[in-house]
């Protein structure tokens, strides 16, 4: 019974499915939705503690400021505003020196991505980790809206005020019905530095005129962030952009001075970044550069009340801390105070001490802080229960009672506030331990099951002789690899681990088999090792080391001529591969019966297939050319004519790139081209498979399918990464040569499968990281996620995001089928396919079973270790910044790569298409 292949498959499927279910249950417990209080807050006393006419009957009507302008500049790091290395915001510096501006370094809570930051800035809460993913996977999801959650925007709106908004349309997703006048700009074109901001500034003429009726004006500028993503913090575009922002600030400030003089209205200006950026201009993680956003409160009123004696610009600070450091969410209670409305219910921010001085009397200062304390305690009780239920916080309760009873000092209020804040923020999420441990147990059990199954098959069956050292090596490999999950820096630098492991595995293989290698194998080893060394040098990955010049960045930024030569070469090489490698052209030989199996130029089939392949890859190449231009790069001279020809065929006349209409038309051309290319590839696949079925001609089918899919993968790859496919082809070729040399005489299938599987796992990961990916959410690449999509739709965008980020793993997953089943094709040997495994139909099921067994052993052991590590380190400092993103990446690997691609796609190719 144990030997029946069907029974084995059933067991294996149960194991894989339980692995996935275990992981999903764990994720559900690990990322629960957080405790959020619904409803809107009111004042705790009958009168507002914030009012300037405190304790008088008119109390609730007299705020410190009548109007507010919140100017959010995306990714405005502290040093852009305050440091001598960026002396471009001279007007802001002047305001600081005059005391009209109070500058802060505000800590923006990771994940430093726009959507969770905006939620924090408006509600005062710390974001749940899921917000970060939903920012990537994006919305249309009504649960993201904040209209039902308490925030300063809705509190202010509830006072009957008018709020206008211009800028990043993320705000409109959060507050769909709140704003009276609004204009959202989409961050669709990351390469657009000017248009997004001009679109905001053009409204200022009207908004800053006398007949504009608003009480709050929110502006969100995206250009700076785009410059960071494209060129980093030292980009040449930085200076003009900062000067532009300074100019906007000056206009708004002049308006506030005018309002003050003419109408005696005081206008508060808040100039802030929602997050910072790191050294290469990305954000999402928790490095000091990313979490240090600038924040300034600006008003002509400030100089009169208190002189803090700040000067600007300051010397550069290595940890990006300038002036005093506050939490970004401290903005929320402070705005409540300054504009006089109740503090939002879920706020975790503390009233900013420097601003407290606006209220002269100390008793009012105390009552302001007391309001803040009361709001905190409500939240505390909602989370931990009343005094009787939360006895582990008895210390805090006693402090709270002493605060309530005696009129304590301002300092004591702050002491209590910071303590509650500490407790509430450190456990922003309550883990669901039932789910966590259930998931853990299921994962462990399925891993033990797969271990038993693996060892039973390879070691205790005795019918087939697999070298035991290989069997043990694979197990040791999985165990040693997965130990790295217990160290945060090892997760960050995982690309190093994979490079090391690939070389170690290769050396292990070499040390056992080098006697069976001949002189030629030296050539293949050199090709193989050089190939993976080039891979390593292609992009930066990880947090610790980043090189200024990598192959990818050189090609993209310094020498697009060579880049495009390489891209065209890649297209040509893969087109030729489709033509000669598999059985594609032979499929079309209707006229003459196939003799032998070599392609003959004189045959009609060759001509037809050549034309079909040529057209398909030309369409793909044209799409890439258009996309390159559309992303704001300069096309090489020799491609410009091609580009003009393409757009002329679509009836678009060339204008400058700044012209919005032209850009819109180009976008349309891009969409059509990318769809056309996709359909062409799909068509070729369909023709190949159906011809194969009709004519019973399946030689080289796997190779054809994987080559055609590779054409699509190339289309979904970033420009600078496309030439990597040339390297990958070299690695695949040399690996196939090396693997077939490990057994010169009698083929031992299990041995081939062990070697191939471990090689594929290594090279999948290595390629993944060498394409610039990391284990941090900051590097999720969205530049190819919208290819061929007109309107945002979560499913196609999600699928395309997955494909464009996992190009390497998908490529190698298909390559593994090739190496296992059609190794002669990978070696470009046309007539030597007698020994290929694909010819032994009865073996297919068991071969795939063994391969799945090996990979699920690897993923099972890794999952157990990762989950164990996350449970063990759940209170670790880096749990949200390092471990949680890794968990999500691992889930993608395990579910999408291992299950969907390695198993489902492979089964479709082997059992349905064949």
């Amino acid at each position, binding site marked *: 019974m144990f030997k029946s292949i069907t029974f084995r498959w059933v067991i294996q499927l149960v194991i894989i499915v339980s692995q996935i279910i275990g992981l999903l249950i764990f994720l559900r417990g690990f990322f629960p939705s957080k405790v959020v209080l619904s409803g809107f807050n009111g004042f705790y006393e009958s009168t507002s503690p914030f009012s300037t006419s405190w304790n008088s009957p008119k109390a609730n009507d007299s705020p410190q400021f009548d109007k507010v302008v919140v100017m959010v500049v995306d990714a405005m790091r502290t040093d852009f505003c305050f440091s001598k290395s960026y002396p471009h915001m001279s007007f802001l510096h002047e305001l600081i020196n005059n005391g009209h501006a109070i500058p802060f370094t505000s800590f923006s809570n990771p994940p430093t991505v726009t959507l969770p930051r905006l939620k924090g800035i408006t509600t005062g809460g710390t974001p749940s980790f899921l917000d970060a993913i939903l920012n990537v996977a994006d919305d249309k999801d009504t649960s993201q809206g904040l209209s039902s959650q308490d925030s300063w925007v809705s509190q202010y709106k509830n006072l009957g005020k008018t709020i206008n908004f211009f800028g990043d349309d993320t705000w409109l997703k959060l507050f769909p019905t709140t704003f009276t006048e609004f204009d959202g700009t989409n961050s669709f074109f990351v390469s657009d530095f000017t248009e997004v901001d001009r679109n905001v500034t053009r409204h200022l003429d009207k908004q800053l005129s006398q007949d504009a009726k608003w009480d709050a004006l929110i502006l969100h500028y995206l250009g700076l962030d785009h410059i960071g993503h494209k060129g980093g913090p030292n980009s040449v575009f930085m200076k003009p952009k900062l000067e532009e922002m300074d100019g906007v600030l000056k206009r708004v400030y002049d308006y506030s001075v005018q309002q003050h003089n003419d109408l005696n209205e005081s206008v508060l200006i808040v100039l802030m970044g929602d997050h910072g950026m790191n050294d290469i201009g990305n954000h999402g993680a928790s490095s000091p550069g990313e979490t240090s956003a600038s924040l300034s409160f600006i008003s002509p009123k400030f100089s009169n009340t208190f002189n803090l004696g700040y000067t600007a610009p300051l010397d550069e600070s290595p940890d990006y801390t300038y002036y005093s450091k506050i939490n970004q969410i401290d903005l929320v209670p402070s705005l409540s105070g300054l504009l006089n409305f109740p503090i939002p219910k879920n706020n975790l921010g503390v009233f900013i001490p420097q601003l407290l001085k606006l209220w002269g009397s100390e008793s009012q200062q105390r009552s302001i802080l007391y309001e803040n304390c009361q709001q905190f305690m409500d939240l505390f009780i909602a989370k931990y229960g009343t005094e009787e239920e939360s006895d582990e916080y008895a210390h805090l309760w006693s402090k709270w009672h002493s605060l309530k009873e005696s009129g304590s000092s301002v300092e004591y209020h702050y002491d209590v506030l910071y303590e509650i804040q500490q407790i509430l923020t450190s456990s922003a999420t309550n883990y669901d331990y039932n789910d966590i441990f259930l998931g853990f147990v299921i994962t462990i059990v399925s891993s033990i099951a797969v271990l038993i199954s693996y060892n039973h098959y390879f070691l205790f069956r005795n019918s087939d*002789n697999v*070298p035991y050292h290989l069997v043990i090596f694979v197990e040791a490999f999985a165990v040693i690899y997965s130990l790295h999950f217990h*160290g*945060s*820096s*090892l997760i*960050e*630098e995982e690309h*190093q*681990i994979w*490079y*090391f492991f690939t*070389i*170690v595995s290769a050396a292990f293989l070499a040390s*056992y*088999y*080098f*006697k*069976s290698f001949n002189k030629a194998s030296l050539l293949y080893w050199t090709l193989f*090792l*050089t190939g993976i*060394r080039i891979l*390593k*040098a292609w992009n930066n990955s*990880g947090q*610790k080391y980043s*090189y200024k*010049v990598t192959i990818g960045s050189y090609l993209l930024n310094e020498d697009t001529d060579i880049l495009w030569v390489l891209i065209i070469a890649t297209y040509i090489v893969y087109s030729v591969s489709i033509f000669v490698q598999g059985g594609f052209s032979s499929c079309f030989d209707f006229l003459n019966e196939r003799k032998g199996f070599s392609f003959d130029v004189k045959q009609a089939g060759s001509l037809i297939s050549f034309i079909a392949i040529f057209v398909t890859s030309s369409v793909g190449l044209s799409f890439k050319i258009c996309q390159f231009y559309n992303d704001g790069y300069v096309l090489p001279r020799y491609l410009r004519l091609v580009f003009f020809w393409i757009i002329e065929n679509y009836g678009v006349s060339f204008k400058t790139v700044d012209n919005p209409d032209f850009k819109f038309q180009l976008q349309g051309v891009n969409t059509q081209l990318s769809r056309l290319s996709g359909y062409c590839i799909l068509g070729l696949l369909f023709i190949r498979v159906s011809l194969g079925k009709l004519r019973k001609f399946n030689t080289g089918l796997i190779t054809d399918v994987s080559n055609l899919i590779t054409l699509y993968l190339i289309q979904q790859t970033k420009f600078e990464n496309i030439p990597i496919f040339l390297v990958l082809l070299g690695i695949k070729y040399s690996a196939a040569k090396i693997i077939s040399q*490990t*057994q*010169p*005489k*009698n083929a*031992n299938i299990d*041995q081939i499968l062990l070697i191939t599987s471990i090689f594929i796992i290594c090279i999948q990961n290595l390629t993944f990281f060498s394409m610039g990916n990391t284990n941090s959410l900051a590097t999720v690449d969205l530049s190819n996620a919208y290819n061929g999509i007109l309107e945002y739709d979560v499913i196609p965008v999600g699928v395309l995001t997955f494909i464009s980020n996992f190009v390497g793993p998908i490529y190698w997953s298909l390559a593994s089928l090739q190496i296992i089943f059609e190794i002669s094709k990978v070696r470009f040997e046309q007539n030597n396919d007698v020994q290929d495994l694909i010819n032994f139909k009865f073996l297919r099921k068991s071969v795939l079973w063994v391969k799945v067994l090996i990979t699920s052993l690897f993923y099972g052991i890794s999952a157990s270790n990762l989950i164990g590590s996350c449970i063990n380190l759940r209170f670790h400092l880096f749990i949200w910044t390092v471990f949680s993103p890794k968990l999500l990446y691992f889930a993608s690997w395990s579910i999408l790569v291992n299950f969907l691609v390695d198993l489902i796609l492979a089964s479709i190719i082997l059992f349905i298409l064949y």
Partner: protein
Amino acid sequence: MAKVKADKKSVTFEKEDVGNDSDATGDIGDTSVPSSTNAKDSDTLKKEREEDLVIQGQIPKLKYSLLTVPYHNLLVLGGMFYYGLTEDINTVLFNGLISLISIEVIYNYVAYGNIKVTKKKKVDNTNVPLLIGGSIITSIILSIPLFVVIIIFGAPLTNYLQQTILLSLHLSVILFNPLLISFKFDLNQFLLVFKANKIYRLIFSHAVLSSSFGIIIGTWFGVVPIPLDWDRPWQQWPLTLLVGGYVGSIVGGLVSPLVTF
């Protein structure tokens, strides 16, 4: 004791096998194909062991294994750290290289004297100063291919170029110089090592070979601390590899007498 016995045996084999040498090696190549991992019967095992003994007899032997252990490497490494290796890597590595080479000359004399002379051979007329000078120069030249190998195995190319060059010079001197001395530039003799059936047993039975093996393994696993976020000065490139290589040379050299006894 066991070693002496083996030596005697090999001496007796040496004469008969000279003529059959090419055939024998051809056989070894075929029988060692790993796909034939059937349980070997005692005859083949015996045969393999005898073949290994032949090879062991043909490579140079040492008088005292413990004498060839490169103890001075520890001195050089310690000295470099004493003179501030972590502060100024390039200068100290260069100065350390000069000291290493001068100590290595003395070591070469010791190592040369430690080679066992087979009595069957003619009078040894080696030009010792030429051998020693040649081996130093050759090991410096061999640092170029070693550099290429280090780069291919993942060392940074654009940054830290000087450090990587100095690393390969250091490793090349401590790796190749003892080998060149003990094998007296005889490449064929050296290649015999790779024809053994139990290659690791052979390597660990020879102090110089196992010391070299220790350098390779030590350097290789010296990369492990690099990604850790401890941010210590000794984590800089290429210090971990250098330490791994140096320590590996001594550990490897010391392991060999342990294994053989």
